[in-house]
């Protein structure tokens, strides 16, 4: 980590987006994570995606649980409200917040311990309810803050930094999320910005539960030779569903180059397009069964499948399922909510 405060001023000719903001405007205070931590790259990808999508940061709520991953919302989008809740319980906070005001963008940041162990129950049910949230798992297969214990996503053949064997199989959160009904499921690698940023942009444009399981190496406790979540291991075993992933904003036409080869363009809910180039043979990310099959095949071959694994662009989110009015509930006032004296008198009469 560094203890240097970031300078407030920035280069006068930094690129600005449609809101007149620079990338720097989307940053936060300097990270206190270890130098080289994968999580910082994910924070940078979030900054990049929000900058490119011209998102007003104050319209985003950042939510997290406990752990290294859950600290990161402190390091990006400084104009956004943040909520660092309790361990494994971010999904319920996000659910309540979303019900109160469905108009904001909800960005949940969690880790493998926070999601796959202590928070498994809440994760499962948030997926099942199709909560409209971008749920990022910063997956490093280890408990960093408590100094290197195995997590539930550590692969069975991997060893700890201290040489211990991991005795239990890993939980595949992406596969599980597809099974549970998540409408956007991707896996990526913190070291692959080219893939991660477009996936992040697509997730932010998607309505419903968007999961991005990002393998994010822990440089201190899980980046050694016998780890299956190290930078080297992932680079060697990365099996991407498409050679390139791109995100085409609303209203932009698809340029000629995207039409070459076997490409798949998926229109998203808001009119933007997620484009997968040279997608694997016979792979259709809109087909749940194929997606699960492909993940398992890849795993059997000792590879880590990345990219957009599954998408259902037409899913109904929790707000729609509950048939909630379009005005956010937190903007309703007395006259909308309070039935008044006449009604109370009627109720009194009915109880006599």
């Amino acid at each position: 980590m560094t203890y240097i405060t970031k300078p407030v001023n920035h280069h006068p000719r930094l690129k600005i987006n449609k809101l007149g903001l620079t990338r720097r405007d989307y940053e936060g205070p300097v990270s206190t994570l270890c130098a080289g931590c994968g999580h910082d790259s994910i924070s940078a990808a979030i900054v990049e995606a929000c900058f490119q999508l011209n998102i007003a940061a104050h319209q985003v709520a950042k939510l997290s649980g406990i752990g290294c991953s859950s600290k990161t919302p402190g390091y990006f989008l400084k104009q956004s409200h943040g909520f660092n809740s309790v361990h494994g319980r971010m999904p319920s906070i996000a659910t309540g917040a979303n019900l109160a005001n469905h108009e904001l963008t909800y960005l949940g940041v969690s880790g493998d311990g926070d999601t796959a162990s202590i928070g498994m129950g809440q994760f499962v049910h948030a997926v099942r309810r199709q909560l409209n949230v971008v749920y990022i798992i910063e997956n490093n297969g280890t408990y960093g803050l408590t100094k290197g214990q195995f997590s539930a996503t550590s692969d069975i053949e991997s060893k700890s930094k201290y040489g211990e064997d991991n005795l239990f199989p890993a939980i595949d959160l992406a596969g599980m999320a597809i099974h549970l009904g998540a409408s956007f499921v991707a896996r990526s690698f913190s070291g692959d910005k080219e893939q991660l940023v477009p996936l992040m942009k697509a997730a932010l444009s998607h309505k419903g539960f968007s999961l991005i399981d990002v393998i994010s190496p822990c440089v201190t406790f899980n980046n050694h030779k016998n780890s299956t979540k190290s930078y080297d291991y992932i680079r060697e075993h990365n099996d991407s569903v498409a050679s390139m992933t791109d995100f085409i904003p609303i209203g932009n036409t698809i340029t000629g180059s995207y039409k070459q080869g076997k490409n798949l363009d998926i229109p998203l809910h808001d009119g933007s397009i997620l484009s997968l180039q040279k997608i694997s043979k016979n792979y259709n990310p809109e087909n749940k069964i194929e997606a699960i099959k492909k993940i398992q095949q890849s795993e059997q071959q000792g590879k880590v499948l990345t990219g957009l694994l599954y998408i259902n662009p037409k899913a109904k989110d929790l707000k729609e399922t509950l048939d909630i009015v379009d005005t956010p509930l937190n903007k309703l006032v007395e006259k909308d909510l309070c039935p008044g004296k006449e009604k109370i008198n009627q109720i009194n009469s009915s109880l006599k």
Partner: protein
Amino acid sequence: MHKIKSINEFVIKFANVNGSGSTSANQMFAKGVFRLGVPVSPKNIFPSNIQGLPTWFEIRVTEKGYLGRREGVDIAVAMNPQSYAEDIAEIRSGGYLLYDSSWKRNFGRDDINVLDIPLTKLCVSEFSNPQLRLLFKNIVYVGALSYLLGIGKNVYVDLISEKFKGKEKLIIPNVKALEMGYNYAKANLTDQCDIKVRKSNKNKGMILTNGNDASGLGCVYAGATVCAWYPITPSTSVAESFIKYCEKLRVDNRTQKNKFAIVQAEDELAAIGMVIGANWNGARAFTATSGPGISLMSEFLGLAYFAEVPTVLFDIQRGGPSTGMPTRTQQSDILCCAYASHGDTKHILLIPSNPTECFEFSVMAFDLADRLQTPIIILSDLDIGMNDFTTKEFKWEDTHMFDRGKVLTKEDLDSMEKFGRYIDIDGDGITYRTYPGTHSEKGAYFTRGSSHDEYAVYTEDGKVNARNLTRILKKHDNAAKLVPKPIIKSVNNSKGVIYFGGSDYSMIEALDELSSDGIILDSMRIRAFPFGKEVHDFIENHDMVFVVEQNRDAQMKKLILAEANVAPDKMISVLCFDGMPITAHFISTEISSYLAEKEVKEIMKK
């Protein structure tokens, strides 16, 4: 044979088989009496079971307005052979036993009056559907009682017609069953019962309802929009009431969409998490649970306390510890609610005593939560929560405005140089908050359960953390001025009694009983924690103070001793924790025997 004679003062107990549809018939019987202007308090004493086990329904009819539970049964309606032995034993000498005499029986008591009605035979002869035969037995005994007690059947014909409005087909057979019972009793049991109900005028301005229904309605009136809950007896009906009233009162006329969101959560942890998330984001949200749920929610309560997020939580207390007695009442979550969660935490408790207060305190809870930015726990219990009481009508004024507390708008933020979430600008310990999405440049902050400074930034500076904790304590102390004050009745006696919650009904009666025995006590009904100066002064001003509670460990006394700076020696506990609502007889006996023993000891000393 001796027959109990009484007008408008008696206890009738129905012994039924769970799942036989008896509760609605018994409730209807109670409502009929209520409609004649006589106060009633029906109590459903039910097992944790769906079908088959014994269940009881006890109704106290009381012109005098003593709505607490009374021991001893004047009329038993014994419909369950499984529990005959104990049901018959409870009947007072000279009392009445009404039973299904299709199978004749000798009950071995010659001091009670047995009223034979062949309920099954009557129903078998009249109805062909086996299920209806079973259900209508209940209506037949209501009909018989309406004759025996002199109520007349018209009030029940009206109640049946109202209940089945829109399902007219059901009215005719129900009325037929009612008349069968009425006519049978008239022909065969003429003048057999000397207990009567006479028309009275005691129920003006009163309604018959329960605390959970009232609480759910209160949440609607308070402007709650999000309810996240997990089913648990006896709190489930709070959420169900909210759902019922929202569906009636909160659907947008134009779009038919809901101005509310209800989530049945995966567990209590998620329920309270959703409530905290919604309140953090500016919607009024609540959950309802019972003891086991409080244990599960404790971690989150600590977060809401320390991060200062408004939260409204109903604890409908049941018998503990652990799973305990899920269908029996207690007041045994006081300490675990007052200090829920690890570290230094203290929560605000509102303690209603009747359904009307359940409504009022629900409305108040949301204002207090927003004003104080902290959890507000409404400590109700199974008795007042699930049982109907003759209680004051709900009142509402259309001028009522919600107090959303210190929330900054975009304009407020525009005129500020720098926003700090936890800066105590006003000196009352309450700081200003912002909702997400308010302002593009100012007002964002990072809510956290980790130690933080005035700007919500993580700090490990112990002095900063201690300063924050001290401020939160100041806020808690100030809350004593905002919560409902105790109700004190004092004629400057040297002895007093403190009580709270559902004990109110029996306490009022016990005070009268004691006073007729020459024991006059001042009384104070505590309605909230933190305690105000009144609680301290009441104890200071009396030489001896009884504390009446429905738990084993004298939890309220302990809380008072810990928080009100009073001498422990003069506080004497009166404790009932058998799961049944405390009775006046229990209280007055405990107090009078304590005083008698004390007198003997003093004489011995001399």
